[in-house]
């Protein structure tokens, strides 16, 4: 059975399709196996029937004006939308074709973003609503440090004579 599975794809192969050693092995198997022999016989009987019929049918048709007929249909057919879209050059293709320009533009964008960020950062500190500064009081070495949102205010230890 396993031998039949090995030789089954070879049955029906044409002359010179198989290497010499496989052809000999197939022949030896067909001599010993009636089942495979029957399959080979059936294939040989039907061999060429389909191909011959198709060939006869094809030969009955005149293909001389074939090319002209196809070209005429192509010319009359409206272009589908996907063909129109494909005609537009893609952004990626443009970038690939203009590498240096793309690099310069990218550098300019980065520089512009940096400048805008710096501008916004500087101006942000100027936009403060009128309000009392928040206070935190620390004592450092006798000095009083008032930590306000605008910066520290340091008061030194008062003299004993003035009493603060």
């Amino acid at each position, binding site marked *: 059975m396993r031998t039949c599975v090995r030789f089954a794809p070879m049955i029906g192969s044409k002359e010179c399709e198989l290497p010499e050693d496989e052809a000999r092995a197939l022949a030896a198997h067909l001599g010993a196996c009636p089942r495979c022999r029957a399959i080979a016989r059936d294939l040989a009987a039907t061999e060429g029937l389909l191909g011959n019929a198709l060939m006869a049918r094809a030969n009955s048709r005149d293909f001389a004006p074939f090319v002209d007929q196809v070209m005429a249909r192509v010319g009359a057919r409206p272009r589908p939308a996907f063909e129109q879209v494909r005609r537009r050059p893609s952004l990626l293709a443009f970038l690939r074709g203009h590498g240096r320009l793309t690099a310069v533009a990218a550098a300019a964008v980065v*520089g512009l973003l*940096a400048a805008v960020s710096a501008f916004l950062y500087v101006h942000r500190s*100027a936009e403060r609503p009128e309000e009392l500064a928040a206070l935190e009081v620390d004592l450092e070495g006798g000095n009083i440090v008032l930590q306000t949102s605008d910066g*520290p205010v340091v008061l030194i230890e*008062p*003299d004993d004579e*003035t009493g603060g």
Partner: protein
Amino acid sequence: MTRWIACAFALGILHIAVLPALALADVPVHLRVIKGSKKGPAKLDASLEPLKRQLSSLAYVRWELTSDDRRTMEKGKVETVKLPDGDEVMLAIAEEQVDKVTFEVTVASRKTQSKLTVERGQRIVHQVSGEKNGSAFFLTVIAWPDAAK
């Protein structure tokens, strides 16, 4: 093409990172000596308007500008500020970062030294003399003054 874009982005990032770092070597500062008084009508010198919020936290109601100076400081270099009463205040930069500076303010006559870190746009108001007849002198220090109001 990918290499060109990578180079461009690297240059852009370098531009953002390196140039500010190079600018740290010199720090422009605006120094003012002001006099605060608890006596007299409340008044704030027009040029001290930006300090209004900070000064409002103190008991002094009258503020006058005594001296105004702009200098360029470097880390480790000591600047001296003379006070109207003859005393001196030493100022130095202890630490520098992109948007922060740590100042050391030394008031020799009072034997005090303060180490204060301020961000860009912040100002130090430091009392530099004892209170006499209800008045005292203060030193104000702001780095990168053009970036602040």
